[in-house]
């Protein structure tokens, strides 16, 4: 044996290896086709043990959703009585974001969502794209219709500008990058598409909840929509359509009203640029942080390092596999839900407030909103608010109290214990 045969043999082997690898990679993962995926997790959650026998419902839901919202390549905006749906969902913007990546004959971009978002957030906006399982936190699942970082209180939709801000700024401390380099109309298009996926996903969940009250084994079977009724029983058909429309109309209205629910915030009475006033604000904010009314410390920890209570957010809790009393996943249910496409339950830790990294934005107003409104979909509650002119003994934070807490939080990353420990110098040559 000599060197030549050895090296050519190795070369052949490595060639074979690489061919095999490429083949394995290609056969193992085809690129996902552009179809929306059904929310099987919600079907399982609503139908329990009987979720496998709901094929008729699954088909009807697919038909209704396609009728109202079209496909990933051909989005559609449902017409709803007495509502200007286009205000929330602009079809031209949706077309720009939908479909395969490319451009039209005027060189305008197409397929922006698949280019920039789908690999994490998924074609259906289920937050379960190919990369999702590797991320912490998981990408947002839009289908719950809940968004964390916004100017509106819990229970209200974010404004167009709230979502736009997230696309432009990204979310520090997560995998969500900034898309500030996209053109303004491209960002607008993506925001419209996120709203589209969110409304579509929420309608789907509504239909599933509705289906859970219907009995397919009844005679005739109770269905969400039965197209045969269009001719046979027009009034029943109309009734079925109305049920379907009601859900979409409610959601479109909520999105339309978002702007009128923005929490307007007056600036603090103290002049925070005045060092003495600011020190007083920080001192007062600290008292409130550890007080029984604001109660921040009970989750964010005595040290504000976020080492308080570990919990789960609404997206993780959604399948109903977290036991409400023990606050632990119900182990027996996990494999079944994972098999339906759910991601492993991921714990949620209260934010470490000493890092100076704020997911919802670092502007004082962003922090004010977090404290005053809470964070939707998470355990973070809204502060007990004491409006001006409230009775003296009412327990709650006043407008200025909240500003003082904001100022305290802003000072935390600069406290000496927040700063990284001085680096120990290694490999120092000893000199005598």
């Amino acid at each position, binding site marked *: 044996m000599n060197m030549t045969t050895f090296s050519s043999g190795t070369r052949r082997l490595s060639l074979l*290896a690489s061919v095999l690898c490429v083949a*394995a990679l290609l056969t193992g993962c085809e690129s996902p086709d552009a179809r929306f995926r059904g929310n099987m997790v919600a079907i399982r959650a609503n139908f329990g043990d009987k979720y496998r026998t709901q094929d008729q419902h699954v088909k009807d839901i697919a038909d209704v959703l396609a009728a*109202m919202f079209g496909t990933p390549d051909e989005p559609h905006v449902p017409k709803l009585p007495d509502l200007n749906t286009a205000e929330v969902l602009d079809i031209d913007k949706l077309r720009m974001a939908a479909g395969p990546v490319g451009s039209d004959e005027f060189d305008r971009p197409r397929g922006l969502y698949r280019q920039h978002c789908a690999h994490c957030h998924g074609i259906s906006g289920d937050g379960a794209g190919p990369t999702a399982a590797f991320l912490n936190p998981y990408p947002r699942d839009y289908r719950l219709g809940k968004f964390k970082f916004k100017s509106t209180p819990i229970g209200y939709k974010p404004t167009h500008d709230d979502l736009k801000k997230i696309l432009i700024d990204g979310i520090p401390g997560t995998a969500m990058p900034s898309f500030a380099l996209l053109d303004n109309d491209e960002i607008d298009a993506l925001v419209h598409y996120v709203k589209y996926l969110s409304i579509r996903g929420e309608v789907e969940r509504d239909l599933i909840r509705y289906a859970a009250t219907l009995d397919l084994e009844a005679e005739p079977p109770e269905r969400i929509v039965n197209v045969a009724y269009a001719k046979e029983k027009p009034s029943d058909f109309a*009734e079925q359509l109305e049920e379907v429309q009601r859900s979409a109309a409610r959601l479109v209205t909520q999105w339309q009203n978002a702007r009128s629910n923005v929490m307007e915030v007056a600036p603090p009475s103290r002049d925070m640029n005045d060092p003495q006033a600011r020190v007083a604000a920080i001192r007062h904010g600290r008292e409130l942080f550890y007080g029984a009314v604001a109660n921040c410390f009970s989750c964010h920890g005595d040290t504000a390092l976020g080492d308080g209570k570990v919990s789960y957010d609404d997206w993780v809790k959604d399948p109903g596999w977290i036991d409400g*009393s023990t606050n632990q996943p119900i182990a027996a249910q996990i494999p079944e839900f994972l098999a339906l496409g759910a991601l492993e339950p991921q714990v949620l830790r209260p934010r470490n407030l000493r890092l100076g990294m704020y997911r919802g934005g670092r502007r004082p107003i962003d922090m004010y909103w977090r404290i005053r409104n809470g964070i939707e979909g998470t355990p*973070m509650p809204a502060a007990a608010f004491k409006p001006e002119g409230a009775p003296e003994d*009412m327990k709650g934070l006043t407008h200025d109290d909240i500003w003082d807490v904001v100022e305290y939080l802003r000072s935390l990353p600069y406290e000496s214990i927040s700063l990284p420990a001085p680096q120990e110098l290694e490999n120092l040559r000893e000199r005598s």
Partner: protein
Amino acid sequence: MNIADKRWTAVLIGSIGFAVAGVVSLLVVSLSACGRVEPPDQVANPANYELIRTALEAGGGSGETAAVQQLAQPTGFATLSGTFKLSGSPPARVALPISGDDRNVCAPGGKTILDEKLVVGPQNGIEDVLIYLTTKIPLDDPKWVHPSYDAQKNAVVEFDQKQCLFLSHVFAMQSSQKLRILNSDPVAHNTKLSPPGGRGDNPIVPSRSAYEYNEPGVELRSPFEVSCSIHPWMSAWMIFRDAPHFAVSKPDGSFSITNVPAGVDLKFRVWQERASSLTSANVNGQAQSWSKGEFTIKLEPGETRNLDVVLDAAAFK
């Protein structure tokens, strides 16, 4: 074979082994990366969805009013009452994991507090079974909603918590009512509401204070879970209904709904936290099969119908 040859053989075997291991591990990696299960694609039938789309765009339907008028008219009012009892032995209640700074308030003296998912009384009565009317009825028509319900229609109802437990583990209210969340504890709570389709909220309720949740406004098909993030073991279930015909069973399993429309077929749904979709029950000694916890009943005007409902322990998970 000289030493050099031996060395080359060893190197050759080593590198073959290395290459094989590389291929195998890559195969494993590539397969496992694709191991996450993808839910199935939604496949719509073009003929169906075109038809539905055309019908929706043409204005959908104004079916509801017509459907309500098709219902027979009630001939009076009756009372529906009864008890829920369990046959067989219930699943064990577990101790709540009470910990944290507030444990002296929540579990004074370190006493054990059990979960309330299924509480069975001494005579096998089941507490906190929810029963509610699911038939859509015209709410403004006094033939359907007795005037005795007028006073409560827009009333404020209270939902309290003490010793880190919600005092009503199952709580039903009308969607037109207002909710006042109370905190009778010396420590703060937060009350997280996520009604599906309704407006979520999650206010901090400082000790011995109250929070007003403006009217829920939306009817829910089934209850949702209420929680407290400060005390994660706290759990309750809440439902908002348009019609006032609902009840939650008392500790002895008894319930009563007055002024139920009589002379018409009505559907009621029975819900319990551990058995959300009951399929069978023994009512007044007779086995009945229920659909998704629902049964149909027609009451005679003026009567008080008593239902002794026995539920089998096997239905409670």
